[in-house]
């Protein structure tokens, strides 16, 4: 018996969507997620990119990388697995060939990056520092990629290692570093705390869950690397839980939420759980303008519910009221 407050709808145009991630001001909370938006260009055919609050690029490494063998993707119930293999053009080509286009857009450009080992993470941050003032607003450090072989796993699962790595990268750049965490851990708060202590400007939650699918006809995995990253609405409950855990335990740490956002109500759930902005990933594949659909629906839904501004609902979730006390006639 939860009483639902009768809310008075307000004018959608009056909804104040502005938000901030630490010092970074955003006109609204909707960004496009890393690996699901390439370097942005292809989307220009389908939508006005300047309506986005920002985007996170495909993960960049110091040197260009080729991807994994195929098949690289498959669908699962309300989700998909991918094992792209962190294919990217490399930091140098990114700065020379991709960044100028992004810099022109006037939106928040987050460069997702990673390295093959400790040193190469730091090298990548150092290389990308050159993009400060030339279009890059945030470095999103991916310590959570399930598809990279060397080292990888410890960066994302051992708090001390993540702490050292974050600190080392923070030291070589003046760009804010948002650390993207993996959900494949027992204690996400410990990870968030470790990177926050090391100077992270915020955390992105969550990357994909590691999963597998099997083709019973061929007796082979459905993706060539056996395991891949699970994304989409299937993982939304896990993502919301982690956002809420971190927001509750570390209220000062800004969170960018993601995982299965397809519509405006999904985005609002993340915001209420404690995210100050969100990224739209897999949904971009279903329709290139998905992030704008999320934005338009978010505004409409907030108006519907009489919510005047994003800032008033970030992290607003409270426990249900306690039940009425029990009277036991027998004792």
């Amino acid at each position: 018996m939860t009483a639902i407050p009768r809310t008075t709808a307000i004018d959608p145009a009056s909804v104040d969507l502005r938000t901030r991630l630490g010092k970074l001001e955003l006109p609204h909370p909707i960004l496009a997620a890393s690996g699901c938006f390439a370097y942005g260009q292809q989307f220009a055919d389908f939508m006005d990119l300047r309506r986005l609050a920002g985007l996170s690029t495909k993960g960049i490494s110091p040197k260009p990388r080729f991807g994994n063998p195929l098949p690289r993707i498959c669908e699962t119930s309300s989700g998909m697995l991918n094992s792209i293999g962190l294919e990217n053009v490399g930091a140098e080509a990114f700065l020379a060939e991709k960044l100028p286009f992004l810099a022109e857009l006037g939106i928040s450009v987050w460069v997702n990056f990673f390295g093959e080992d400790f040193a190469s993470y730091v090298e990548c941050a150092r290389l990308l520092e050159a993009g400060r003032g030339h279009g890059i607003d945030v470095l999103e450090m991916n310590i959570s990629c399930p598809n990279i072989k060397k080292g990888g796993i410890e960066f994302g699962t051992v708090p001390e290692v993540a702490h050292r790595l974050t600190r080392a990268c923070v030291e070589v750049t003046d760009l804010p570093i948002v650390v993207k965490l993996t959900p494949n851990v027992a204690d996400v708060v410990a990870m968030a705390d470790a990177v926050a202590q090391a100077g992270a400007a915020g955390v992105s939650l969550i990357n994909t869950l590691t999963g597998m699918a099997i083709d019973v006809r061929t007796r082979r995995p459905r993706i060539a690397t056996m395991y891949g990253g699970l994304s989409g609405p299937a993982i939304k409950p896990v993502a919301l839980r982690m956002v809420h855990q971190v927001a509750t335990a570390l209220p000062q740490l800004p969170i960018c939420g993601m995982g299965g956002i397809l519509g405006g109500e999904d985005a609002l759930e993340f915001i209420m759980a404690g995210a100050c902005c969100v990224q739209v990933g897999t949904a971009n594949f279903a329709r290139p303008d998905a992030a704008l659909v999320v934005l338009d629906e978010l505004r409409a839904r907030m108006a519907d519910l009489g919510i005047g501004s994003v800032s008033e609902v970030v992290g607003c979730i409270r426990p249900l009221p306690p039940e009425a006390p029990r009277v036991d006639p027998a004792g």
Partner: protein
Amino acid sequence: MTALALPSQFSARVDVNRSLGGGYVVLEFSGVSGGALGEVVAGQFVMLRGEWGRELLNPRAFSVLWSEPDGRFAVLLKAYGQGTSRLVASPVGARVTVTGPLGRGFRPTDGAVTQLLVAGGVGLPPLHLQARQASARGQAARLELFYGGRDRDDLVLLGDFEAWGVRSVLATEDGSVGARGFVTAPLEQRLVDARAAGEAVEILSCGPTPMLAAVRHIGLRHDVPTWLCLEEEMACGFGVCLGCAVPVHGARPYQYCCSDGPVFEAKQVRWP
């Protein structure tokens, strides 16, 4: 591998859902919002997604069967997994989200070379469109269809090729129409004859992957330019997810089915 009008994303409605027998269905659409396909090169495709809820996330790829200047277009398909099954069951009036036209298609027929169109199953549409366009330019005589299937019902839209004046060589596994066996046998014979006659030919093929693998070997063996329209599992269809990798020879190990293809030259494709 010829390109292309700029793609757009728009909403369309199902105007016609026509069964051709053998499980094949033609869906005809017209746009209801935003863009339209515009001119399409044979081999280009669209990504289609119905109102599927959240269980099936990604759109599905379909070669364009035809596209009219008024914005109507059609695809040919068969129920395979869940997405195609839902599309095949679409009632008239159903809405779909369309992105397209996507990819790079076949090069048009020209006067110099005879194009041998090798089709199987739902791989027919690119070759059907190639023939339609050639015929519209009065070049139907420059191409020949080699079309294979399991049985009589597995060969559809034959009347169109006939009407366009395209010669057809048919083969069925059960022998109910044309030669018994795979269509690669008469194809190989045709290459032998062409070489003997000094005739310039090239192969354009689309169909099930095992068929394309066989056609590729034949093309390589006979040193005939061979273009394959490939299918890889796709999430986005426009070059951003990097899911649809095609193994290739050359400086980079992979190209992308949706943006570099779906038409690839046989010798470029890194298959066994």
